[in-house]
């Protein structure tokens, strides 16, 4: 059974609806036992890193996510869920779960391309340039676009975990993978067919 971690961080309903559409069985839970028993774990989130980490710690979910990772369970991070699996976030200057070495950074204040100022948050459709093959991204066209809404981005210290990058004034890591963990900055549940394909791929991924 797939488990979606419920930690009061934003709209996880859209992830539920997408899984429902894909015909996947799932539970939405903050119960560490259920998470430990799940076959796959989805770690979504919208909101601020500080509040999210406080809530995870209060429910001992930070330790639970670590354990799920160590036991080899496939884990999918989405948006804020991706940002807080790194060591720390510049948002609220908070220590995070630390499954992946690196920090979550804020976009520089004055980004521009060809003299046009870029708006923060980075909101809208953008491409991901995939660096290597991965089962979760199987069948995704290279020009596919995904829906982003964020002001912070993951910056892992080890380049080899970067699965995909996106350009928005700077080139940032928009998809990363380490062992049984895959994490994306965009919202696959709001990215049409290619996004649904990623969710579908994840649900059938063994983690290897």
């Amino acid at each position, binding site marked *: 059974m797939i488990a979606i971690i419920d930690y009061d961080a934003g*709209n996880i*309903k*859209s992830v539920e*609806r*997408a899984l*429902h*559409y894909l015909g996947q069985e799932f539970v939405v839970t903050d119960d560490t036992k259920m998470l430990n028993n799940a076959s796959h774990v989805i770690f979504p989130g*919208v*909101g601020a890193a500080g509040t999210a980490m406080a809530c995870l710690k209060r429910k001992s979910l930070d330790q639970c996510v670590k354990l799920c990772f160590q036991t080899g369970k496939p884990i999918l991070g989405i948006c804020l869920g991706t940002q807080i699996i790194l060591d720390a976030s510049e948002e609220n200057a908070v220590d995070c779960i630390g499954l992946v070495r690196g920090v979550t950074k804020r976009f520089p204040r004055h980004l521009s*391309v060809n003299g046009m*100022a870029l*708006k923060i*948050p*980075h*909101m*809208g*459709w*953008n491409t991901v340039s995939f660096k290597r093959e991965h089962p979760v991204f199987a069948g995704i*066209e290279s*020009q*596919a*676009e995904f*829906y*982003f*809404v964020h002001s912070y981005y993951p910056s892992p210290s080890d380049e080899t975990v970067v699965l995909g990058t996106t*350009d*928005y004034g700077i080139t940032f890591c928009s998809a990363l993978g380490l062992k049984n963990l895959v994490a994306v900055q965009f919202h696959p*549940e*709001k*990215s*049409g*067919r*290619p*996004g*649904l394909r990623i969710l579908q791929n994840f649900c059938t991924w063994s983690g290897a």
Partner: protein
Amino acid sequence: MISKRIIPCLDVRDGKLTKGIKFQGNVDIGDPVEAAREYYEQGADEIVFYDITASSENRDIMIDVVRRVAETIFIPFSVGGGIRCLEDMRKVIGAGAEKVSVNSAAVREPDIISQGVKAFGSQCIVLGMDVKKVEVCGQTPSGYEIVIEGGRKYTGMDALAWAKEAERRGAGEICLNSIDADGMQNGYEIELTSLISDNVSIPVIASGGAGHPEHLADVLTRGRADAALVASMVHYRIYTISQIKHYLFGCSIRTRMFW
């Protein structure tokens, strides 16, 4: 780089589409959920719904529409019309809309913008502005005035000043509708769109006047809009979203081409 967005706009009254969209098998009145699905499949990047239901007791029908749309399409969509308080926003977002748009209510009580931003985040709050061209004067130095109640009531507010105030209050986006151009299919109000786009740093969605893909190319370049709303030209099946996008592609305007 981010793509320009093409956004069909659907008017819904008592749970039904108005404007008599000519979908196959349907006559004048269509199902908003089916229309949303069709545009989603044609490559729409987002969808805007306006609830023009007159009676408040029929408002909950819209919430049911929102819920069904959210189960059917997997792109962002926004809902406007009749959003008067935080509770209205909560219902719409809870039912699955990504964004809510406020228009008249924000003119009467600008605090609703700040409250919405605090509760749901900037990215959820769109300011809808209905604008008419007027004479440049002390009250309206930009030469554009905010109107409400479907363009019937002048507010005395300058459009540019209002756009800046909405940005200051944290609105994530502005949907800029020209009442003069609306429904004419003669092109967007380029001068108005570039004026607002150049003076705020949040995205501007141009609305009103689209009749030909050329009009979209114009407003996304000269008008410097981030997104363009379309209605009649797709509702009457003159163009599909896909045809519009292919036209823009030919003009070297980047939109999402794989869906």
